[in-house]
């Protein structure tokens, strides 16, 4: 079963992250690298990515002529996806365990973080 574990951040989360003290930053980076290694070695990691700052994010939709219309980020957006892990595990309990571990990543502010866990639907190619 595949799950997506999402780490969300408030609008100013990136800017705050950039000014953390160096010991916390170093611990945060080391934790993330170690976690990827561990999940990879366990054969559970499908994908993980960190997303670039929402500073460059755009909302896009097709205009009347079908061409893209872009807009800045919605002013009312309070939270942005900062990064995700896709894991392939035996069941939800293991996904929650991993999410709990992710939530303890060293940082400044409210810890542990809340991690959003969502099951991924099987693709059509998986249906036998």
């Amino acid at each position: 079963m595949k799950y997506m574990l999402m780490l969300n951040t408030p609008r100013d989360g990136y800017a705050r992250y950039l000014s953390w003290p160096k010991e916390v930053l170093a611990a945060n980076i080391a934790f993330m690298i170690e976690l990827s290694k561990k999940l990879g070695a366990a054969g559970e990691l499908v994908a993980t990515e960190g997303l670039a700052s929402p500073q460059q994010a755009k909302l896009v939709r097709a205009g009347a002529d079908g061409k893209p219309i872009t807009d800045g980020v919605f002013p009312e957006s309070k939270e942005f996806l900062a990064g995700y892990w896709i894991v392939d595990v035996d069941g939800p309990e293991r996904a929650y365990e991993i999410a709990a571990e992710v939530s303890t990543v060293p940082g400044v502010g409210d810890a542990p973080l809340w991690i959003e866990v969502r099951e991924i639907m099987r693709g059509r190619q998986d249906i036998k």
Partner: protein
Amino acid sequence: MTPPPPEPRIERLLRELAPQALGALLRRFRDFPACEDAVQEALIAAAAQWPRAGVPDQPRGWLIQVAQRRMTDHLRSEISRRRREAAVAGEAPAAVAPALPAEPSIDPEDTLVLLFMCCHPALSPASAIALTLRAVGGLTTAEIARAFLVPEATMAQRISRAKQSIKKSRVPFRLPDAGERARRLSSVLHVLYLVFNEGYTTTSGPALQRTDLSNEAIRLTRAVHQLLPGDGEVAGLLALMLLTDARRAARTGPGGELIPLDEQDRTLWDARAIAEGVALAGAALRRGSVGEYQLQAAIAAVHDEAPRAEDTDWPQILALYGVLKRLSDNPMVALNHAIAAAMVHGPQAGLDLLAPLDADDRLSGHHRLDAVRAHLLERAGQRAAAITLYRAAAEKTTSLPERDYLTMRAARLSAAD
């Protein structure tokens, strides 16, 4: 089913033979997509059989025979398909081409012709890269997909579309004429440079697979250099790759973090690669030819020849960037020129050279401009301004190792308060 990877000796042999087999087939059959598929199937068959049964006496002949058999099967089924579709009788293509001799004569220029085809300027860089790695490099679609971290089906589509464009463009299987050649060679070198960079710039995660891309780029550039030993830019690119790759082991720390050039442990540098790169770069310059890759290689050589960072011959680097800046309007060259000027004449000289770059659309808002300015401000003792710009650069970069490096740099400076 994917066969297990063959032993390295066989793998090397197969990759070397891949373009030769494809060249032999293309001269006979012309249909690029079908020939390429046939060679790929022959490579997979060899990878499965040779480790068990031993390498045949004439491995190249073996590959060509097997690929040719596949090609013949393909043509037969094409013909019967057309017959079934009630095509006009007599219009069917010749069913079976005459068999090739066991060890057909091989034109060493085949590899070059193939590179010219695969790096055709009509293809997007991503397609050209994928096709080059498969048709010339002999890599499987699965290997290429892994290297670029995309699903295999996506990569298979990219390759198949690239092959179809080549078929449609009706590029003949021969060397372009002299007038066209220089322009096409520069596309080939650009694609090889991109493959190298793709492998070189990743530092964490699946790094091991991706450094294979750097090795592959070096191997292919070496092959081009053997075919065109007198071309200064080919020699320059090969030298640049070797001199850059020589620092690989020193470039990242245990946690995958980036280590800048002046803080690297130079005893980890690969002395053999440096010696080869320096010799290549020197020989090209002595022949009197000048080009962007040669100049970049010369600059890399000056860095690599300094036993300690403080021994770096910055006046020489500044002079080389001065020449490069006249040849190329790449704004990254202007940035590096400013860094060199700062090393020779002090940080203010560098900052002065950066000022006009704010007006360059390609650079304004680019994290590299902020990062370089932050470094120079740090050296000039303007700590607060440096911290602000390091953080601005960190927020803009889309590379995680780079973001970590810039963030830590800002954190270290602000901890020194």
